[in-house]
């Protein structure tokens, strides 16, 4: 209290009170001052209040700064509440912020007064500026006053559907706050969480999963629909959110997918041979048999998760790396877990606290998957500068990693550690040697000998620790080592550490038959010093005496009696009890019962050798990286890592209906297009930004034309319909997008027959002016490549009528299974042609034709176009028919190039790989080729391939590969084309298609296109 008074005096220094106070101090002593202090204490912060009430912002700021400094030091400043809360609406932004800090700190104590500030925040929630809305919500939700729960609930709900993702993020943050304030709101909050989980922005994802984990981690069903989206967004989420999402998805995956290692033994083979399998051996075998009947196929969603988290191992954030590592450890097939080792070893160069946590986890992992860390053995070597706790953990890992091949190097390391000055560490090393010796029988003798050598060490602690470890080792094969037991017996003269003495005595007693001469002598010495020994030593002396009595009663009878008599009067009742018990048991009297007959069996029973186990064994039933794992005890709020299900739950729950929603279109995360972690990933998220980016984006060295880029982004936006991508735009932007989408849809519906396409020079397709005025480039369906036209009827044979056709590559709207064929009729004769139509169509079975409507009149010198649809049944068989005019009939036939029998589909890179993976073997055709000189850049390849076949490009991370995808028009079988380029024009073409004929022909066509 005196301190406060003095500070009070200091504060009052400028006032006249000081003089008064000093006078009081002088005349009345300390108590007088204290009295005055109490009197004034209600006005203690008068100067601060005055400053807060002033009109000057600078004074207010100064006051607030002093108050915040008080809070920081842990001083109570609650009596200033009314004065501070008045300034909540202050214009000065720093004052306002400091008032918020104060308010959040003291609102709980001053609930009524805190309510005064609420209206300010409510106003803030309606502000047009998103940042003000967000900060108002943030402070409002931080005020822990139960009375405003309904207000908070309303605010959160409203903010959850706010246009700005930043406000929605704040709403997600507010959810756990409200939940901790009033758990009764859970159901309503889950609704909000469900809504926010569906959000497609990276900004929100981390925060809402955080809220999910705090409020309703058991509602795993909420994740289904968002699973794929979360996986795909993951890499772009801020680092803290990544940790939370990865941990949650680990749990999710454990409930939804099958164990990828189901067919393998859980324990690593080799090395662990010594270890016993406990209990459930047979059950496991049965399980395996059952599972082997149906071979394991990994769920694509499971694969997606593993694939999308892997790059995060390169994160600078140790927590993210650890999160991915534990995900791989818990979820990945055994063969793939290895990738995490390198990243974890990297973390060992970080701060010592990080090392501590990582080593704990590595210790657990290294028991189950030793092979993974073996290449990094040297990274766990201990340096003299490491803190002891790190040393001990590294030792643990080294011990776990020891096997027949590396044990000699490890032991050599251990040998230097024993020379360390850090005694705790030396003791741990000796125990580690003991563990190596038990686990690896080859080196048992070497270790034992080394340890025996340590018995002559100058340091008693080293000797004592060695004795304890040797005792355990000797238990395994005592008969071979009676000389060591003798050696140890000698040590009793010198060694003082009780545990060591006790261990030696136990050894001698246990194996007294191996040292029949020495044992009684040891007992004699011990009997002499009995009264001065520690309790554990005394117990072992009694033990030794009893055992000797039973084996060699002639020599030791008296000694035993003597020891038991000493023990009878010991201070410790345990020892007295023991002595009484043993006497009854071994010394036959009339009263002693049947038990004494068994005394020998009781004392000299064969005891199993102790198993020296890692303290980290079986710790992996806790989720790695978690607090619970570290403490090896369940922490509050820990969610158990579920066991793999026996049978996989329905994977279709994760399917998301393809919505023709406007929101989904327009923005794409560019993860799959190669610009990871880069700026392009947000190209979509803000239109302005996008433009800006487009401008500032470096021109790629390849001569990629503007139109190509457009095409790409266009295709991505439609891809986003299937792959959930985020979209966030102001209403204006939405509208823009909407028009685009509507346009595209309508274009498709109208079908090619109604779309007016004129041909100019080599058949470049252009859009009508009307469409161009919309500012939209119709790139999605028809790639910018030229359409090749073929001759159907020559001018001479047609007597003036010439017909050319091309495959317009537009969907044929009357029948989606038909290929649209665009025909151009030119009447170069001098007379009109009438009633132009089709007759007598001759087709292979299954093929169908939809004729074009009859052209009634084609005046001389004029041109007309028409579109007909032909279902080629995915074959290159020709469609034969007669083209009739009012005067003549011409036999014509249309034979499609194989490339026209397909239509482009939009796949993401991931989908592409997935699909490709399913079309291996017979369905895959690979050809090596040398690219034409003119066709060695990406752009040229893309153009040639898309000219040869109606495929769309698949975004690809590597620029050494071009991928294309399409489906055959009739059966919808996937056609996947990959052109991988290498040095000097060498390339490899891969076509994956279920229809082998189509595939073979396509390879030929593309090969030709690329080489000529």
């Amino acid at each position, binding site marked *: 209290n005196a301190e406060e008074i003095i500070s009070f005096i200091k504060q009052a220094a400028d006032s006249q009170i000081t003089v008064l106070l000093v006078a009081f101090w002088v005349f009345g002593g300390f108590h007088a001052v204290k009295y005055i202090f109490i009197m004034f204490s209600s006005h203690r912060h008068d100067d601060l209040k005055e400053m807060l009430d002033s009109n000057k912002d600078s004074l207010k*700021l100064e006051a607030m700064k002093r108050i*915040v*400094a008080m809070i920081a*030091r*842990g001083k109570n400043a609650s009596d200033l509440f009314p004065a501070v809360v008045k300034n909540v609406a202050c214009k000065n*932004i*720093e004052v306002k*912020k*400091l008032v*918020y*800090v104060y308010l959040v700190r003291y609102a709980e104590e001053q609930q009524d007064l805190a309510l005064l500030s609420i209206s300010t925040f409510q106003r803030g929630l309606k502000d047009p500026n998103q*940042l003000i809305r967000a900060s108002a919500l943030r402070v409002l939700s931080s005020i822990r006053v139960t009375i405003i729960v309904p207000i908070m609930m309303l605010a959160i709900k409203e903010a959850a559907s706010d246009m700005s993702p930043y406000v929605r993020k*704040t709403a997600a943050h507010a959810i*756990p706050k409200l939940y901790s304030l009033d758990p009764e709101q859970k159901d309503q909050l889950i609704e909000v969480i469900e809504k926010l989980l569906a959000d497609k922005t990276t900004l929100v994802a981390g925060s809402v999963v*955080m809220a999910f984990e705090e409020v309703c981690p058991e509602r795993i069903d909420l994740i289904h629909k968002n699973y794929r989206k979360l996986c795909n967004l993951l890499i772009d989420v*801020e680092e803290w959110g990544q*940790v939370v999402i990865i*941990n949650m998805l680990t749990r999710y995956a454990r409930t939804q997918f099958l164990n990828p290692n189901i067919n393998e033994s859980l324990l690593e083979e080799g090395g662990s041979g010594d270890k016993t399998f406990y209990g459930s051996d047979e059950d496991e075998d049965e399980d395996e048999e059952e599972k082997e009947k149906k071979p394991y196929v990994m769920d694509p969603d499971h694969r997606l998760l593993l694939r999308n988290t892997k790059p995060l191992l390169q*994160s600078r954030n140790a*927590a993210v790396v*650890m999160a991915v590592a534990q995900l791989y450890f818990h979820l990945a097939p055994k063969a793939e877990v290895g990738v995490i080792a*390198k990243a974890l070893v*990297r973390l060992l*160069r970080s*701060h*010592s*606290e*990080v090392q*501590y*946590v990582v080593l704990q986890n590595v210790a657990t992992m290294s028991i189950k998957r030793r092979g993974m860390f073996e290449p990094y053995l040297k990274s766990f070597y201990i*340096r*003299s*500068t490491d803190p002891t*706790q790190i040393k001990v953990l590294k030792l643990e890992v080294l011990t776990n990693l020891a096997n027949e091949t590396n044990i000699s190097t490890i*032991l*050599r390391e251990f040998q*230097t550690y024993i*020379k360390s*000055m850090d005694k705790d560490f030396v003791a741990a090393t000796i125990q580690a040697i003991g563990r190596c010796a038990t686990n690896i029988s080859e080196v048992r003798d070497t270790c034992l*000998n*080394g340890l*025996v*050598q340590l018995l002559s060490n*100058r340091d008693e602690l080293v000797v004592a620790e060695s004795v304890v470890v040797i005792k355990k080792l000797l238990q395994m094969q005592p008969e071979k080592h009676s000389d060591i037991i003798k*050696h140890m017996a000698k040590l009793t003269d010198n060694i003082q550490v009780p545990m060591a003495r006790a261990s030696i005595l136990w050894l001698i007693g246990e194996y007294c038959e191996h040292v029949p001469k020495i044992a009684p002598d040891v007992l004699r010495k011990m009997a002499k010093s009995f009264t001065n020994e520690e309790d554990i030593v005394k117990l072992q002396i009694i033990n030794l005496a009893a055992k000797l009595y039973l084996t060699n009663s002639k020599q030791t009878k008296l000694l035993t009696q003597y020891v038991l008599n000493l023990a009878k009067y010991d201070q410790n009742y345990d020892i007295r009890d023991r002595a009484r018990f043993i006497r009854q048991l071994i010394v036959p009297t009339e009263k002693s019962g049947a038990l004494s007959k068994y005394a020998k069996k009781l004392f000299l029973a064969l005891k199993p050798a102790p198993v020296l186990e890692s303290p980290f064994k079986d710790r992996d039933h806790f989720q790695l990286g*978690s607090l*619970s794992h570290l*403490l090896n005890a369940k922490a509050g*709020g820990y969610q158990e890592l579920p066991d793999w299900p026996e049978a996989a739950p329905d994977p279709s729950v994760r399917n998301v209906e393809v919505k023709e929603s406007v929101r989904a279109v327009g923005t794409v995360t560019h993860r799959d297009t*190669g*610009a*990871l*972690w880069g700026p392009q990933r947000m190209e979509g*998220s*803000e239109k302005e930004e996008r433009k*800006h980016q487009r401008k*500032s*984006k470096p021109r790629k060295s390849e001569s990629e034309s503007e139109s190509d880029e457009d095409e790409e982004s266009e295709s991505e936006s439609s891809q986003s319909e299937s792959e959930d991508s985020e979209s966030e735009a102001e209403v204006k932007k939405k509208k823009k997008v909407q028009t685009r989408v509507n346009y595209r849809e309508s274009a498709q519906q109208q079908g090619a027959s109604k779309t007016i396409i004129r041909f100019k020079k080599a058949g470049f397709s252009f859009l009508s002016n009307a469409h161009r005025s919309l500012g939209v480039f119709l790139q999605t369906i028809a790639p910018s490549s030229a359409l090749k036209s073929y001759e159907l009827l020559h001018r001479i044979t047609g007597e003036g009528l010439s017909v050319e056709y091309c495959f317009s590559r537009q969907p044929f709207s009357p029948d989606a299974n038909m290929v649209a064929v665009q025909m151009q009729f030119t009447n170069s004769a001098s007379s009109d042609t009438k009633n132009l139509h089709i007759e007598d169509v001759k087709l292979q079975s299954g093929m169908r034709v939809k004729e074009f409507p009859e052209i009634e009149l084609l005046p001389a010198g004029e041109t007309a176009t028409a579109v007909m649809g032909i279902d080629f049944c995915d074959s290159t068989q020709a469609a034969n028919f007669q083209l009739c005019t009012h005067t003549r009939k011409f036999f014509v036939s249309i034979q499609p190039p194989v490339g026209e029998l397909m239509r482009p589909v939009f796949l993401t890179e991931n989908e592409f790989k997935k699909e490709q993976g399913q079309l291996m073997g017979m369905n895959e055709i690979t050809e090596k080729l040398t690219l034409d000189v003119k066709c060695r850049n990406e752009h040229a390849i893309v153009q040639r391939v898309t000219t040869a076949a109606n495929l769309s490009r698949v975004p690809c*991370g*590597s620029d050494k590969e071009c991928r294309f995808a399409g489906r055959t028009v009739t059966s919808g079988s996937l056609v996947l084309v990959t052109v991988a380029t290498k040095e000097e024009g060498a390339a490899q073409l891969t076509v994956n298609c279920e229809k082998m004929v189509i595939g073979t022909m396509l390879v030929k066509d593309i090969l030709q296109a690329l080489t000529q």
Partner: protein
Amino acid sequence: MIHSLFLINASGDIFLEKHWKSVVSRSVCDYFFEAQERATEPENVPPVIPTPHHYLISVLRHHIYFVAVIQSEVPPLFVIEFLHRVVDTFQDYFGVCTEAAIKDNVVVVYELLEEMLDNGFPLATESNILKELIKPPTILRTMVNTITGSTNVGEQLPTGQLSVVPWRRTGVKYTNNEAYFDVVEEIDAIIDKSGSTITAEIQGVIDACVKLTGMPDLTLSFMNPRLLDDVSFHPCVRFKRWEAERILSFIPPDGNFRLLSYHVSSQNLVAIPVYVKHNITFREGSSQGRFDLTLGPKQTMGKAVESVLVSSQLPRGVLNANLNPSQGTYTFDPVTKLLTWDVGKINPQKLPSLKGTMSLQAGASKPDENPTINIQFKIQQMAISGLKVNRLDMYGEKYKPFKGIKYMTKAGKFQICPYNTPFTGFSLTVLTNQIHVFR
């Protein structure tokens, strides 16, 4: 997640506390003090301490313990990483992260902590965003503020948080546009007495100081990217581009940042730039020991080895050392038995040496420990792994920036170990002899 934070100085005073949820009494730190007492060394305090109602997760930096109070399950690394980020931010703001600096800037510290966590969950940890929200105090600004009464808090709203490149603030303008990169490599090595390498690894970082106007998009390529065995990136680096082409492509944050940390694997042969010849002997029965240590350069590619500092923990029995350095100064602390020798620059013509005698405690037996020798050094203008930056290109902006790259090699944990014999100590022959003696 994170409930509260306490800052505790070396003498055990809690000099700052911050609560993000309801207030946790500072008496919770008593558990921490208990653990601190149990641990002999300050760095041996366990980072995670369970208490009946809370968990304490702490980091030690600059002799300050940052103790976070946790109430429920959270990945410990999450908290540790965050606390380190807090320290880095303080360092970034105040130049140093000491108790005095924190106390002087307590309001800024509080504002920072308020922005960095919301309800215990990290909110804004990017230095560029924070700097937009709260301007770092500089002497000039402090003066201006006291005169004009303006504040450290940014007048504008933090647009950075909405940005799609959250690590870069918008509207950056410089008159001199410059981008500097420092390639700093550290050698971690354990070398045995005969000079052969037991383990050697190279850890490298590329620290950047980028002051460029607008939104530049940089690409940095290496002559020999294959050297890099394991890398971790600043979030700005495009990962796929690296995977495909081994090129670093990124929009840099403004100011100082660590672009890349890498590791050159021990599979590659690591050049060891210095060698040490030492002979430290004690004779049984004598109270004197001889000390003889010579340093020399080795594989330095003609570059000078500078700022050499040798330190060694001498055995406990040594009372004092009477040594004679050929250059530099040495100190011996009789309490901690730590010998440090500040050598300075190694002159290859005249190798630095330290010779003399050590006096031992009278009557003490011959010390057995052969001390480990730690060495620190610096070599300018060289990256020991041979890593070379090929070129730096800038896209997206029109001006021509100044570009600079600097290489440096340092000793990391560079140790000379006492042993030089292969594993023979545990051989059976020795043992049987001993047994004979016993018989």
